[in-house]
């Protein structure tokens, strides 16, 4: 499995990670300048920049695996909605600060244990990106978990709001934690991670944060979202229309 000419599963699996980072960075980018306090403008921008940096490395790596000459921008700006393989969680709108920070906690608590395992990936490019990314992800998790605790154990209003955010966003976590065929194939090949093990770490982290925040764990719901297979809700199309507008309006221009 050389760098140019990875399997299509390998390409798709790296794209899942890349797109999940990119779409979340795009969402956080909408907020810069509009956060509840100046420190949060800086903190959210910091997370957005790290995620975008990781997304660029992952997209470049995916393009090399595909071997068709697509670079990070071709993959980001010239694919359609159904070709985006991001988790459905990250395309959810920013909502209020509670929604933003709960989405971030549920994501960060997944990314940290995932990256920890990917540092041992048989794909050396992916292992290097994960080794750099895991330090950033741990920092993001401290930030998001710290805020969930303050909002949960803050005022009656903040507790009610953030519990509502948790209920709304919880259904989107299932696909992050349950392996499908591509996840299993990549784990078996030593490229991906064992999502059952990631799930164990995620459950412990989220349970600890919710306990400290005096929040209740929502019930799991039967419906499954599969953004990672290109099956999205209603929000991604608009996000991409905005993100891709200049590249689509001026085909072939350089910027």
């Amino acid at each position, binding site marked *: 499995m050389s760098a140019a000419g990875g399997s299509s599963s390998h390409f798709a699996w790296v794209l899942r990670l890349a797109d999940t980072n*990119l779409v979340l960075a*795009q969402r956080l*980018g*909408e907020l*810069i*300048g*509009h*956060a*509840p*306090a*100046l*420190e*949060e*403008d*800086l903190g959210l*921008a*910091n997370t*957005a*920049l790290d995620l*975008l*940096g990781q*997304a*660029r490395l992952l*997209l470049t790596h995916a393009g090399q695996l595909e071997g068709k000459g697509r670079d*990070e*921008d071709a993959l*980001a*700006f010239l694919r359609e909605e159904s070709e985006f393989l991001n988790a459905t969680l990250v395309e959810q709108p920013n909502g*209020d*600060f*509670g929604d933003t920070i709960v989405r971030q906690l549920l994501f960060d608590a997944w990314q940290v244990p995932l990256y920890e395992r990917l540092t041992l990936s048989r794909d050396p490019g992916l292992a290097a990106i994960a080794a750099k990314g895991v330090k950033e992800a741990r920092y993001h998790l401290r930030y998001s978990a710290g805020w969930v*605790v*303050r*909002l949960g*154990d*803050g*005022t009656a*209003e*903040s507790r009610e*709001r953030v519990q509502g955010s948790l209920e709304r966003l919880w259904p989107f976590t299932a696909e992050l934690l349950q392996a499908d065929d591509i996840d299993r194939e990549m784990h078996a090949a030593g490229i991906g991670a064992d999502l059952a093990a990631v799930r164990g770490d995620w459950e412990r982290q989220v349970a600890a944060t919710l306990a400290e925040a005096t929040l209740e764990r929502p019930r799991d719901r039967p419906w499954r979202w599969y953004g990672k297979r290109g099956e999205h809700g209603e929000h991604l199309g608009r996000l991409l229309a*905005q*993100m891709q*507008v*200049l*590249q689509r309006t*001026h085909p072939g*221009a*350089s*910027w």
Partner: protein
Amino acid sequence: MDTAALEARFAARIDADERIEPKDWMPDAYRRALIRQMSQHAHSEIVGMLPEGNWITRAPTLKRKAILMAKVQDEGGHGAYLYGATETLGVTRAALIDELLAGSAKYSSIFNYPTPTWADVGAIGWLVDGAAIMNQIPLCRCSYGPYARAMVRICKEESFHQRQGYDIMLSLARGTLAQRRMAQGALDRWWWPALMMFGPPDAESKHSAQSMRWKVKRFTNDELRERFIEFTVPQAEFLGLEIPRGTIDWSEFHEVLNGNGPCNRERLTARRHAHEQGRWVREAALAYAEKQRSRQREAV
């Protein structure tokens, strides 16, 4: 020591180019003038996040997106240290922000202009940050220590911002016909407002003479404006863009300053909206901190 003696010693220190520090005695008028100038500067950084922030989600490449996010984040950081430096004069950031939101504090008029195209992001970096650097480099030697030190750090980042703006303009100027038109349109929009950033002509500037005596300000508005023009005209020629002809319309300057510019309302509304929407979050953080303190007291 009586006031006359304190004032004489203060004036002597200014004449000797000594730095004034927060705990030093200073005339009330000097303190008030610094609070006014520094808080306006801090507000300008915060409001200045909005026109460029308008393009973060639509930046045309991922590299440009990352650079723009970092730039807007830098501006927030500049606002944070300028508020911090202003607090050394005995005011609070919360009170200053309340004045901004109430519409009673000023910020740089330039941020009341819209950014309808991607080229406006380039023009802001090239012209607006370029003009800001001209204004701000002398402030690194300003007589008030905390302001001077904040400006050293800020100027380093601003020069990076200016270069990235020019780099955007260069890509557009070497691009397609539509891109070149976009670049020229942005230069046409930003040229006059950028020249107005240096403030009214020397003859009409009400704060200049006193600020020069206090060595808060080192060059006059017109001197800095001329220097900026000399610096920028050859850069426009290199891009193959035309500098607009004509003269500055000072009535426009006064209108924008008085709240009647194209985006004054949008900018303040955006700041107020963020502040209002964030109220419950700030209240929760305070309530949590208070609970933590009482838990610690109980534990002792």
